[in-house]
């Protein structure tokens, strides 16, 4: 970059500063995984575990009763009928529970759906452990078909004392043909 021969201190500094620039550009992208780590720790935005956990059979705390509310949504452009079979369930922390969700595809095309969970208050997300969930995978559903999708979970007994009620929302997206649609590879 420097035409003049005797500017070594300048070039050395320029190289360092350009290094900082590239480092910060990479840092911008590193913020993406860092943000997820941050969310996992603090429960920002109520993100839940994205893969199944195994039920560790903790001691069931029968002295507490937690109400879990389930809400379903479909986004604009997602025609499926999507309902929680159970709208609220009362559970003891540590107890394993199963709830079911019903879907039907009324559109004239086959659609691949993806459900995205969100928990409020966000901190409760850290204590909601899902051992089985339809939201872990893409859900393909041909035109006119219906299905019942299970979700199995337990509430960690460590759930803070002041939380005795929380809401789990599933938002269903149409991801047919997008890069998030992996049904072609992993035939279910």
């Amino acid at each position, binding site marked *: 970059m420097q035409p003049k021969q005797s500017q070594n201190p300048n070039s050395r500094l320029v190289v360092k500063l350009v290094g900082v620039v590239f480092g910060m550009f990479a840092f911008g992208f590193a913020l993406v995984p860092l943000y997820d780590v941050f969310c996992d720790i603090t429960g920002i935005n109520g993100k839940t575990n994205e893969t199944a956990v195994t039920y560790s059979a903790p001691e069931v705390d029968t002295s507490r009763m937690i109400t879990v*509310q389930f809400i379903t949504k479909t986004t604009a*452009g997602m025609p499926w009928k999507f309902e929680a079979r159970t709208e609220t369930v009362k559970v003891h922390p540590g107890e394993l529970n199963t709830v079911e969700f019903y879907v039907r595809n009324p559109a004239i095309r086959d659609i691949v759906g993806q459900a995205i969970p969100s928990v409020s208050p966000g901190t409760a997300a850290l204590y909601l452990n899902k051992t089985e969930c339809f939201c872990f995978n893409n859900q393909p559903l041909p035109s006119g078909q219906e299905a019942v999708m299970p979700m199995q979970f337990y509430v960690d007994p460590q759930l803070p004392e002041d939380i005795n009620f929380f809401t789990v929302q599933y938002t269903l997206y149409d991801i047919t043909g*997008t890069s998030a649609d992996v049904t072609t590879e992993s035939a279910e």
Partner: protein
Amino acid sequence: MGLLKGTIGTLMSMFVSSAVFAQSAESARSDLNLRQGVTEISSQVYDLHMLMFYICIGIGVLVFGIMFISMFLHRKSRGVKPANFHESVKVEIAWTVAPFVILVLMAIPAANTLIAMEDTSEADLTVLVTGSQWKWHYKYMDSDIEYFSNLATQREQINNKFSKGENYLLEVDRPLVIPTGQKVRFLITSDDVIHSWWVPDFAVKKDANPGFINEAWTNVVEPGVYRGQCAELCGKDHGFMPIVVIAKDPADYNAWKSEKIAAIEEAKAEEERLLAMNMSMDDLMANGKKQYLAKCAACHQPNGEGLPGVFPSIKGSSLVLNDKVGHIDIILNGRAGTAMQSFSKQLTLSEIAAVVTYTRNAWGNDTGDIIQAKDVFMQANGK
């Protein structure tokens, strides 16, 4: 610094007396200041705002006062000789520490109010609030009541053809109704872009993020009509998606609720009746035009030509002209990844039939097709 503290002390007492005074007054919409609102939280927020305001005024008066005194006294035209001091560790430490102390004093009440605001536990009623371009949808979690809430101001008022009403841009067709004296919890989310649900009288403003839920709550003391607006830029009609909340005392609220549930039953029966019946082309066109202007024209424009590059034209569209099933499908189910949403919840079957008939026959789209409610019903239920 003693002077500073003294000033703040005086201001604090002024503030306390003014707060007492304000409490006896009716909560009114101010054109100059934050409103006190109608909940305990909103009046705490108001008090905090006034406290901050007076502290800022105090700091301003002090700093600018000294500056103006200096500008008057220490002018060259008065023949003064400039001093030569340029540092004083004591003074500098003082004016670093003093603001710090003031900040801590401000932070304590702020933190208390914040904790109270974010405590959404033990609500009496939960309402799911969903934003979409450019309307709100309310769903009561304890019953079947759910509906869209659209801007009710006429287009003609916005375009300066009619004179503007009292609640211009702050009126909706179906307001949210909540009971007074109960803790109402709002679960807030969005169908498309980020919106923000804001009712100033409740001091509630929460972003509606697509795919995520947020919580807020209120406990309204006084029955009344409270108005707000979407606060986050959400596209073309961001300025045209107001919020109206009617707070009714519990008895009136329950009456409203039963009436609403009865109306839902009735609408279902009416829908059944319409399914069995065939509408005439003229009726379908008239109703279709009405629905089109209300629901579709914001994007596709009243002339059906859309906005090039943003919203597609319906006039001459091959989907409309050639693909009847696809046409009904796109209105029923929307199209993923575009602004075209599903209208199956916003329009009844007969309204969808009317819109489809209208768009297939208006602006030179002369297909001559008549679509009946039962055609839509058959397709929606996969028959």
